[in-house]
């Protein structure tokens, strides 16, 4: 039986104080992952004696636009991302990814900060945030630091967040207009699907010369935790439309996955499927 004491934080300062003073605690935001783990008594939870509820800290729920960046509060829900004019204007692939999460009920409660810190290999927001070079602001009692999301997630369900640190914002640099993004996902049914595979990519496209100048590609659920497929990126970068061989690239993405994971029971399915969604993403991106 899991037992814990419930602590309710009303603001950032109070949350950080609790985290500093109560060791063996879990942060509760939307609860859509944590309460499932508690119900299932998941071994992933480890030992804890306290739940620090941060879900009512309004100062952590915002989407703000600055000259060069967009800043998102960690308690921003998936529904808020989907409905935000700022997110839809600058990072439509993030809104598209949020739309594929769970169900309306889950999207109304689940938060971007929770999705990131749970660090599930299948987290739908992590690949888009990674291709967008998102950076997290982390605060503790006597420190504040910024960590790129690429360095934040260090393993399946593992992050480099210290026990007393709170994510206080997610900052995404704005892109110039020649960048386009795409998000793909395969699940078993339309709703509530935990991604069997997903894929986020953005590319800087030189329309005049029909050339890809810069590309970032992150599949999800393909590797123990999402990361950029840099070999594949190099295969594509600098190429013009007619130099792109999508069959060859879909082979390459599978090979890069296997170079990281080795052959697994799921490889015979995931290799062609990943190749397939890469093809689909490239086709949509370039309007082939």
């Amino acid at each position, binding site marked *: 039986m*899991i*037992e*814990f*004491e*419930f602590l*309710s934080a009303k603001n950032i300062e109070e949350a950080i104080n609790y985290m500093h003073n109560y060791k063996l605690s879990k942060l*509760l935001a*939307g*609860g*859509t992952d944590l*309460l*499932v783990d*508690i*119900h*299932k008594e998941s071994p992933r939870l480890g030992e804890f004696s306290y*739940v620090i*509820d941060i*879900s*009512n800290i309004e100062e952590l729920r915002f989407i703000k636009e600055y000259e060069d960046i967009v800043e998102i509060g960690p308690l921003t829900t998936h*529904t808020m991302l989907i409905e935000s004019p700022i997110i839809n204007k600058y990072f439509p692939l993030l809104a598209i990814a949020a739309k594929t999460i*769970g*169900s*309306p*009920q*889950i999207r*109304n*409660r689940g938060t971007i900060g929770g999705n990131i810190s749970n660090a599930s290999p299948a987290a739908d927001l992590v690949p888009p945030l990674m291709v967008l070079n998102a950076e997290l602001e982390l605060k503790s009692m006597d420190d504040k630091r910024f960590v790129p999301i690429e360095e934040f997630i260090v393993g399946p369900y593992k992050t480099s967040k210290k026990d007393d640190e709170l994510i206080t914002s997610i900052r995404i640099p704005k892109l110039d207009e020649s960048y386009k993004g795409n998000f793909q996902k395969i699940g078993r049914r*339309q*709703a*509530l699907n935990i991604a069997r595979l997903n894929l986020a990519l953005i590319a800087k496209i030189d329309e005049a010369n029909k050339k890809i100048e810069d590309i970032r590609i992150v599949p999800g659920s393909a590797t123990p935790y999402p990361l950029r497929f840099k070999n594949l990126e190099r295969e594509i970068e600098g190429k013009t439309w007619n130099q792109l061989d999508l069959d060859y690239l879909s082979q390459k993405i599978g090979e890069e996955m296997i170079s990281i994971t080795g052959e697994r029971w799921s490889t015979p399915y995931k290799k062609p499927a990943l190749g397939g969604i890469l093809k689909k993403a490239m086709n949509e991106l370039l309007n082939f």
Partner: protein
Amino acid sequence: MKNIVVTLFVNGKKEVLEVTSKERLLDTLRDQLNLKSVKEGCDVGECGACTVILNGQAVNSCLVLTAQIDGYEVYTTESLENKGNLHPLQQAFIDYHAIQCGFCTTGMLMSAKALLDKNSNPSREDIKTAIEGNLCRCTGYEQIIQAIESVSKKVKG
């Protein structure tokens, strides 16, 4: 473990309740307030049978701790009937044979209500999206979608 006192506004009525740290909204509604329309299904946010409207949004009451929602407004299916008259959604579910075993119905009604409160003129796709978190194993969904559509058409006049 010390208990926590919370105030909820449930179906328009103020309730001051004492809850344990791990008591879910689902448990509070069913066990403390005897609101049995809220069904316990999968307990992990997949079936939607426990759906209620919390501060205007459809949520799974199995994934909310009551201690988290001090001061919030909660609406369950019990709020739909008005002075002995069924809510148009409830009547439509009957008229369109959208109820078979009935287990998913109350959660389905709350998802439909949350949709219509926000968008009185939803497309068929909007309706499908709104109920995608509510599993039904007997109707096949078509009658449910038609029932919700019929109410939105009435709203449209």
